[in-house]
């Protein structure tokens, strides 16, 4: 069978990324242009910056992806692109670039869901498809458990009902004055802390469903740090050790429901593989907790490598390949499904 080469484009949030992926496995290139330094100044992802930076970079990033893969446009069989969910202004640039390439090169255009791509990203490092599996996706905007029967049957089992895990990291990092992005900062500081120092709430830990709620945890940390009646109003009165203990204890409270519910989801569906994707999967304490839970239960844990945990086009190339084989196509009327997530219509 001839090789299928997918050129994949991902611009759902603050990363501009392009990749060339062969047969949904071999990543010939995966160019990611992080814009983190720009956003750090503003304490968050500022969409205006994200959109402008995408426009400036998208052409160069695609060219570089082709160069690194040592292929030309004519070697490409299809263009895969993230069409949502994400920031509409950012998505629009990737989608427009993909439509332009599809039109001028006369190649098929394949839309790919960003979250489903995170849910299946662990397959990038497997020789054979790891499905069926339960897949935990933890990022800035999403905290979800999926049952992946195969590429065409990805079922949402549970999700956050208020704040996403990554967002909670950002908010707690802001409370502790640790800067943005919050995940790596809290992870780093927590290494010196005692995770059992403070017992923060674990919402819905023993509920039978697979949903999460982190808004109460964020508020509990706020009260612990700021004091009753917001007496202190900042974290400035805490010692370095106290901040480390808060960070470690917060992380522990955030991680426990993720681990318990993911393991329970695997048991309920009778699968023996757990995959983890999304930016928060880079958290070292989460990785360690999942590994020991899987060891205890005899489950296989597939941790998506760091480079495919944050937003990247390689995972879009993987799922785009499967969608391409299944005959999924978009025409030039493709529009991004953006920040206004239309639900329940």
């Amino acid at each position: 069978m001839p090789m299928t080469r997918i050129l994949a484009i991902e611009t759902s949030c603050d990363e501009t990324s392009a990749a060339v992926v062969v047969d949904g496995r071999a990543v010939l290139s995966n160019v990611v242009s992080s814009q983190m330094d720009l956003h750090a100044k503003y304490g968050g992802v500022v969409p205006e910056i994200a959109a402008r930076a995408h426009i400036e970079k998208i052409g160069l990033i695609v060219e570089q992806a082709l160069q690194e893969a040592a292929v030309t446009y004519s070697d490409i069989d299809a263009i895969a692109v993230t069409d949502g969910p994400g920031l509409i202004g950012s998505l629009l640039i990737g989608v427009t670039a993909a439509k332009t390439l599809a039109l001028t090169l006369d190649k098929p255009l394949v839309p790919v869901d960003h979250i489903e791509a995170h849910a299946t990203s662990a397959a990038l490092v497997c020789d054979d498809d790891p499905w069926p599996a339960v897949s935990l996706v933890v990022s800035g905007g999403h905290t979800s458990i999926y049952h992946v029967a195969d590429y065409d049957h990805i079922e949402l089992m549970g999700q956050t009902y208020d704040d996403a895990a990554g967002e909670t990291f950002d908010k707690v990092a802001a409370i502790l004055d640790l800067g943005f992005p919050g995940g790596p900062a809290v992870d780093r500081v927590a290494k010196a802390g005692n995770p059992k120092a403070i017992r923060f709430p674990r919402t819905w830990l023993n509920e039978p469903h697979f949903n999460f709620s982190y808004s109460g945890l964020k508020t509990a940390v706020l009260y612990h740090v700021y004091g009753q009646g917001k007496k202190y109003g900042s974290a400035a009165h805490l010692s370095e050790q106290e901040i480390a203990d808060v960070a470690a204890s917060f992380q522990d409270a955030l991680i426990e429901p993720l681990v318990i519910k993911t393991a329970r989801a695997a048991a309920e569906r009778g699968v023996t593989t757990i995959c983890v994707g999304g930016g928060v999967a880079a958290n070292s304490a989460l990785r360690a907790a999942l590994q020991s839970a899987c060891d205890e239960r005899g489950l296989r844990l597939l941790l998506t490598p760091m480079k495919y945990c944050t937003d990247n086009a390689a995972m879009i190339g993987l799922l785009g390949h499967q969608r391409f084989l299944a005959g999924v196509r978009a025409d030039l009327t493709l529009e991004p499904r953006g920040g206004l997530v239309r639900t329940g219509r």
Partner: protein
Amino acid sequence: MTTLTTRTDSPETTRAIGHALGAILPPGAFVALSGALGAGKTCFAQGLARGLGVPEGEPIVSPTFVLAREYYGRLRLVHIDAYRLCDLDELYMLGVDEALNDGASVVAMEWPDRFEALVPANAIRVTLSHDGNDIRKIRLQIDAALADALCRATVDRVHWRSPSETPTTD
């Protein structure tokens, strides 16, 4: 405009007030939700959405990361978090301008102080503040007829004060 204030001792009560408000909101209403981190803005918005008839099965999730989310109940609800926005154009890029002007949707905006220019003169202003543990102060600035309806709908569980009332023990 009438000012109503109360204290709630649980997220459930905050949600219940949002619910009662959502049930009586007219098309085109704009709800400006102010308050510090963890004060209960999203919690209030969750009640508001249910009161507008958004089905129970649909989570009302924090819009911080995606900037805005949209739901459909009795009326369309656009839930916006202005915290991360730095430019008005971005709201237009999100397609929110249409919701602001169509006279049919309800807009709930967190961190409205970032975009005061967008807040209409007749907006319902909800201000939530921490008052120790699970206690929150809630202040509403709201059209007199809606204030009346809201007080009637919540009479069983919320004790409202308006500034004309002399506080007794508080």
